[in-house]
């Protein structure tokens, strides 16, 4: 009998909680459930979700300050990764991150920002989409043939 009363109380509590919890607006639910068909578009969302834009910029142009980084004290952009990496190399880079940032001046403190490795934190699907997105950023007008 006691058990039954407890279960009843629990059920009432859960129901009340569900009723009191403000529901998400319809527009937010629609956006959250919409999954873009294109891998590039999904990759753009991954880029935003994982905070890549915080350092590399919303458009991937980089330029955010990273004092004493050998890269002119800035976080590099990601617009040109397609010419510098194969898909496999880029996947590896995203999983491993950049644990060591070269310093412009070895006597000064190390640059405060480093790229985290996403290994163990990102699904294979998200990683693939992110790679597709990053590869898509390359401006075709910048292509140079050296061979």
């Amino acid at each position, binding site marked *: 009998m006691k058990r039954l009363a407890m279960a009843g109380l629990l059920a009432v509590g859960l129901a009340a909680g569900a009723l009191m919890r403000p529901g998400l607006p319809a527009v937010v639910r629609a956006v959250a459930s919409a999954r873009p068909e294109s891998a590039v578009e999904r990759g753009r969302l991954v880029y935003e979700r994982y905070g890549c834009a915080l350092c590399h910029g919303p458009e991937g142009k980089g330029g955010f300050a990273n004092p004493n980084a050998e890269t002119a*004290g800035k976080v590099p952009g990601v617009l040109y990764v397609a010419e*510098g990496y194969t898909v496999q190399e880029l996947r590896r880079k995203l999983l491993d991150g950049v644990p*060591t940032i070269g310093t412009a001046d070895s006597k000064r403190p190390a640059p405060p920002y480093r790229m985290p490795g996403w290994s163990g934190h990102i699904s294979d699907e998200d990683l693939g989409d992110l790679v597709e997105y990053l590869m898509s950023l390359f401006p075709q007008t910048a292509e140079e043939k050296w061979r």
Partner: protein
Amino acid sequence: MKKTLPITLAIAAAALAHLAPAQEPVDPRIAAYDKGPATIDVSKYPPDMQTRYKTFVAKCSKCHTLARAVNCDFALDEEWERYVKRMMRKPGSEISSTQGKEIFEFVAYDSKTRKKALYERKLKEAPKP
């Protein structure tokens, strides 16, 4: 005073550590490259490659040891092209696209000459287009 000093020092150390976190040591593979020879004997290379070597030395030693570029295991043209372009795009590298191409032409030639065995092995292993 005696009691507060160590605490103050500990807080200061923690603050400094936060500002300048210890970086992870250089990848052992790269550290090994860094310990190798830092020059290439180009005296028998064609004059245009000797000129390109100067660009290679001037530009590639700006951000990392020259030994790293001299001793790394890149050998194929496509590997070098990707890598030089990657470096060229880094802020502050100050490698123009003309200089990048010169560097690429030098390292590609050097790989087929000085690293001939590695080049041929990698070429054989590379997937055919």
